């Protein structure tokens, strides 16, 4: 029998809120799908759209960008800029008829270990339903 599809999800987590929230999920011993590979960045505003696009075109089944809730940015306003960039990225992907649902922007605070687990679980389930990212095997990319 074919092995069940295990998504590969890249998670850009901001150091101050979302990475801390992910740590708290750990400290609280919650269950989080192992499909997520966390990548720590100092601020969600460091996540440039080309990085996300690269991950997407290289075959990531999902890309999660997670940062502090609006108003909570450790660097004052970074997440507002991050949100605009993400909106543009998502729109470009969507307009090209690609699967923009594979990209997700979530705000997760340092106290939201539970929420972090939920976000990843939910995203993982969604990606599972979507199946593997076809970019992964597309030759001419």
């Amino acid at each position, binding site marked *: 029998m074919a092995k069940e599809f295990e998504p590969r999800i890249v998670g850009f987590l901001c150091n101050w809120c979302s990475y801390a929230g992910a740590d708290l999920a750990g400290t609280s011993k919650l269950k989080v799908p192992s499909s997520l590979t966390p990548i720590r960045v100092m601020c969600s505003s460091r996540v440039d759209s080309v990085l996300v696009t*690269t991950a997407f075109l290289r075959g990531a089944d999902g890309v999660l960008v997670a940062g502090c809730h609006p108003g909570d940015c450790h660097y004052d306003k970074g997440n507002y800029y991050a949100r605009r960039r*993400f909106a543009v990225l998502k729109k*470009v992907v969507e307009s090209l008829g690609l699967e923009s649902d594979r990209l997700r922007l*979530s705000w997760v605070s340092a106290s939201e270990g539970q929420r972090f687990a939920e976000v990843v679980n939910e995203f993982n389930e969604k990606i599972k339903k979507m199946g593997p990212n076809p970019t992964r095997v597309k030759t001419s990319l």
Partner: protein
Amino acid sequence: MSKSEGNSKNKCAIISSKLDTNEVIIDFLKKAMDKGIFDAVLMPLKVPAGDSFAYVLIKDKTLLKDGVPLSPIMSVQGAKAVSSVTRLGKAKMKIAAVMRPCEIRGTNELSKLGQTNLENITLISMDCPGVLPMSDFLIDPEKNIRIFNEAMQKGDDTIMRPVCQICDKSSMVAGDLHIGIRGAKKDTFFMISNSQKGNDVLDKLGIDLKGDINSWQAKVKNIADEKHKKREKHLKELKSKTGGLDNLADTFSQCINCHNCMRVCPVCYCRLCYFDSDKVKHPSEDYLKMAERKGSIRFLPDTILFQMGRMLHMSLSCVSCGACEDACPMSIPVAQIFSMIADETQGLFDYVSGRNIEEPIPLITYKEDELHDVEDAND
């Protein structure tokens, strides 16, 4: 909704003349140079060989007569020309830059990006009939100049480039002065001012801004609405043709990574394109690994990444001028695809590139309360 109508606060003068549009513009420029309002003019000129057109900075006013403001092709996007003159500081003399609306919009974008200094530049546009596809034109320049002029007379855009056919901003007034032909009575032209700078020029020439602009506005709106419908329909069709991973890959399968599209793009102002830099050159083992995974891998690689990256970087400033498509040796409909993306991304922020020089480019600003449909803050 079409956004291409002239600004309602625009003032205008009506000029009577038996000359054709090109001649009227040149006559106007000559008078302005005579009065010392401009020291030089930047505009398209027929090259000596007669088979092409190039932007030329004219200091000697006797050469003005060779100018072709409404040239049949867009050899270089005018914004790039203005940028080369003023990127490092304001022009040392007063220059009138005569360009098509999309070129002026490109200039405005570049101004926001610090790539032009418009202090001594007066931007003059005119109702644009479109231009011919470069590849068509080059087959028989002489004949095509004639065909273009005839089509222009008739207001027929079917031989123009596809992006020109769906351009709903061909009369957008985004510079200082605009010469309107649409809706004008025989042997008259609209001279429209869009700024204090424009007012001053007309004032010095003794031209009173007392004309009635309504018929131009009505005609322009008419054309724009019609073209807007066409644009939406065309881009929708394009989307279904190129949309989706397979179609997209097919569309760009002929791309040879020459990056010409980027090089001619007016708003691709980077010194070195990100996608030409070492940042995106990866060790061969990365590609070998990919080949292993995919079974095979196309070379040169990362074509789609380049195109998407360029969309991310500049679709908010894209003015749909079509330069990229003219420059593509593989005839990929790049400009149409970019127009489609630009309409979408600019629409996110209700932004129209180059419309207004005061409007900040969306990525350098934000609102606290916006875009909630792309985030999931609460479950």
